[in-house]
């Protein structure tokens, strides 16, 4: 039983490839348990997981480049032109 369990245990290399599936909550239940069992006994992987979490949060704080307000006028004019042309035929359905 011990041997079997040991064979089933994940190694760090595997954990590193599963971190995002873990965070996405898409690991099957048994896989999730193996992942968490490894994490509980491995400070390196626990630190790695935290770093990935911080990375995701940091990416999420990047904002699209500020949009140059000078084009507002241009878009107002485009809008008027497009509206007057009427709807296109087949386009993307909602």
């Amino acid at each position, binding site marked *: 039983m011990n041997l079997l369990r040991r064979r089933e245990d994940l190694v760090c290399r595997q954990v590193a490839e599963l971190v995002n599936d873990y965070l996405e909550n898409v690991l099957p239940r048994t896989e999730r348990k193996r992942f968490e069992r490894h994490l509980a006994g491995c400070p390196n992987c626990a630190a790695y997981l935290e*770093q990935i979490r911080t990375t995701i949060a940091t990416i*999420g704080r990047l904002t*699209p480049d500020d949009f140059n307000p000078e084009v507002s006028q241009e878009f107002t004019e485009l809008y008027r032109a*497009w509206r007057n042309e009427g709807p*296109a035929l087949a386009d993307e359905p*909602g």
Partner: protein
Amino acid sequence: MESDTELLVALRAGDERAFVTLVNRYQGSLLRVARTFVPSDAVAEEVVQDTWMGVVRGINRFEGRSSFKTWLFRILVNRARTSGVREHRHLSVDPTVPAVSPDRFDRSGAWAEPIIPWESDVDDRLLAESWGPALRSAVDTLPGLQREVVLLRDIEGLPAENVCAVLDISEGNQRVLLHRGRTKLRTVLAAELQARGKS
């Protein structure tokens, strides 16, 4: 700030100010995603302008089954594809290729070097402020689909299923691409922290 839904109601009523507000809200995001498909900023701008035209002309057919944002990106990606630009949709994504370099592990599969936790006072807000430019350029150098997935998931905040719909990729590929992108960006942040003596 007015919600997209409020702006759409106004736009349906012909309010051009609502249109300009939406343009201001999404232009940067659209350009960034468009740029992953096309070879130049100029072509990206054309694709984005085309997208806004699609919005104005299709607004009455938008039924709100998806969010406005998903609809918008869907139009953008369709426009980008019909511009006869770089096509990488059907590249196969091999899920067995590891995202983390095998050099990082010893023969038993354990980390060869310890992972030193980032300082607890390094919060993501500070990171984004200090290293936003480095991270942004790292995002810009991710390969096409990885970049699109990271942009739409982690910057635009679309749910996984909407990203699959917008980019027309499978859920499995979406996950692999997201994993690879995030793994690379972690490496960039780690290098930045180390270079500045904070690691």
